[in-house]
């Protein structure tokens, strides 16, 4: 899509995008490189090395069963960032479709909006927990339930963007030309609202990571042997007072990633619609 008018220096001048994308890039890079840094995987236990403070052997120390914290955190990032990315994509696709048709057709709008309101009135974590209780925990189910919880947010943003786009007279011009509804929706409205949807999705990516971590922390998310930032903290909590690093370092990992994503989202909003930054 020709974005001719997004001049490069406007992007470079926008500090938030730069820092945000660097942070996100680093996290993704480490996630991909993990199998090379720790080829033996996250489950290696050296029982003699239990609860060791951060040292040269174990940069970030070890957990209650002697597994290296840095290794588990890196493998954990594959889960957490993976879940976040998957939720982001799913919510974007479904949110966009629902929002597009809800914004364009009044009938669809009433039904969809009532459902979104109802989904919204059930607190997100409870809804996620309830869904997980049905489907059983596991990465796939976590992704599905968190996506269900956040799709209404994207749908609401997409719908609002469609309603404003529809007021523009170039849509009326297309109708006067006899253009079909799908051509108007997908070739004219969708590309124009993509920017506000992408901004919302970057925030949902961050919130999804937080929700996954909270779910795992409540013991309903990713099942324990498989490392995820949430369940690492969940396990660390029991021995928190002897081994503070089991709680502090995962927190830093989560905070940095989510902070980077939020920065990226803010920067994109400045770039795409500067007036309401």
């Amino acid at each position: 899509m020709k974005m001719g008018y997004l001049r490069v220096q406007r992007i470079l001048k926008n500090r938030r995008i730069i820092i945000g994308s660097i942070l996100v890039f680093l996290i993704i890079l480490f996630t991909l490189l993990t199998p090379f840094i720790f080829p033996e995987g996250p489950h290696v236990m050296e029982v003699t090395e239990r609860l060791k403070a951060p040292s040269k052997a174990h940069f970030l120390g070890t957990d209650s069963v002697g597994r290296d914290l840095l290794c588990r955190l890196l493998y954990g990032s594959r889960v957490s960032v993976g879940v976040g990315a998957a939720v982001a994509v799913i919510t974007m696709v479904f949110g966009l479709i629902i929002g597009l048709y809800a914004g364009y057709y009044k009938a669809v709008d009433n039904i969809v909006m009532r459902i979104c309101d109802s989904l919204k009135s059930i607190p997100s974590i409870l809804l996620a927990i309830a869904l997980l209780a049905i489907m059983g925990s596991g990465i796939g189910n976590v992704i599905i339930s968190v996506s269900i919880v956040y799709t209404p947010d994207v749908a609401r943003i997409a719908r609002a963007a469609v309603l404003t786009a529809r007021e523009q007279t170039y849509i009326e011009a297309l109708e006067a030309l006899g253009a079909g509804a799908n051509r108007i929706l997908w070739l004219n409205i969708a590309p124009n609202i993509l920017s506000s949807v992408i901004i919302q999705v970057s925030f949902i990516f961050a919130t999804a990571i937080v929700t996954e971590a909270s779910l795992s922390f409540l013991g309903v998310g990713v099942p324990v042997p498989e490392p995820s930032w949430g369940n690492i903290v969940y396990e660390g909590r029991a021995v928190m007072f002897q081994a503070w690093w089991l709680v502090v370092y995962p927190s830093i990992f989560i905070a940095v990633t989510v902070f980077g994503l939020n920065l990226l989202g803010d920067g994109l909003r400045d770039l795409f619609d500067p007036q309401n930054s």
Partner: protein
Amino acid sequence: MKKYIFKRILTMIPVFFITSIIIFSIIHLTPGDPARVILGDNAVESEVLALQEKMGLNKPLPLQYVNWLTGIFKGNLGESLFIDQPMTEIIWTHMKPTVSLTIYALLIAAGMGITCGILAARYKGGILDRIVTLISLCGISVPNFIVALLLMLLLAFSVHLFPVAGYKPMSEGIGIHVWYLTLPALSLGFIHMALIMRMTRSSVLEVLNSDYIKMARAKGVSEFAIMTKHALKNALLPIITVIGQTAVTLLAGAVVSEAIFNIPGIGQLVVTSIGRRDYMVIQAVVLVIALINMFMMLILDILYAAIDPRIRLDSR
């Protein structure tokens, strides 16, 4: 005004029904038979049948739904399989801690959020503005269970300013009650404080460069009066919306804080009920929370209409 409230209540009825259908279907679309799951695999067939009978699971689904719904209107929310108190009592006892926690967290979030947001907008671009923007950005980046654990480590464990965990009900004195709830409320409210701060700042900024502020200035109104008499009231509308949304998500957040500081709140009840498949309780609690949220949305709308004459008078 009354017609407006009536109209709002009308629109809530379909939402209530859809919510109840969602909750009901979540519980009853469980793969496998809830009764067998509760009694465990080696349960005797007759026991399973008896339990099914007790829970009314053998009737067709729509009938069960109708019975459940009519039960609600009659105030009978079904009984818990593990706690032998009437459902309303179970919910009420678990509700009290969550309510005081949420209100306390909301006070912190709204209080800090609005004041910092206004100051940041008033001195746009100054150091205060940059600090507030940074705090609000970090605020939304750190999940509340991390904030909780860090607070626990810093303020409770190493410095003993606050109790590490636990809960003291109101009956044992306001001071202790609040003292125990401070860390949970702080951790719960921190993320929402950041959200309110961001929204307040952007909505005050938007109002400050509107035409009626320029007209007020052209009338000779002082900058202070512009902020207090003109800007704040207009900026209040979007702020109320975000506070309303915050209140709804606080109830969700409470689940995590209650788990960390083991406060016997509604969130704790749900998590344990889900653990032991106590469906009736899950259904009742989630429905009550949804009702509270809808009620809060109604209050929000009424507050909105009270402030904005265009809504109040339009619906004459």
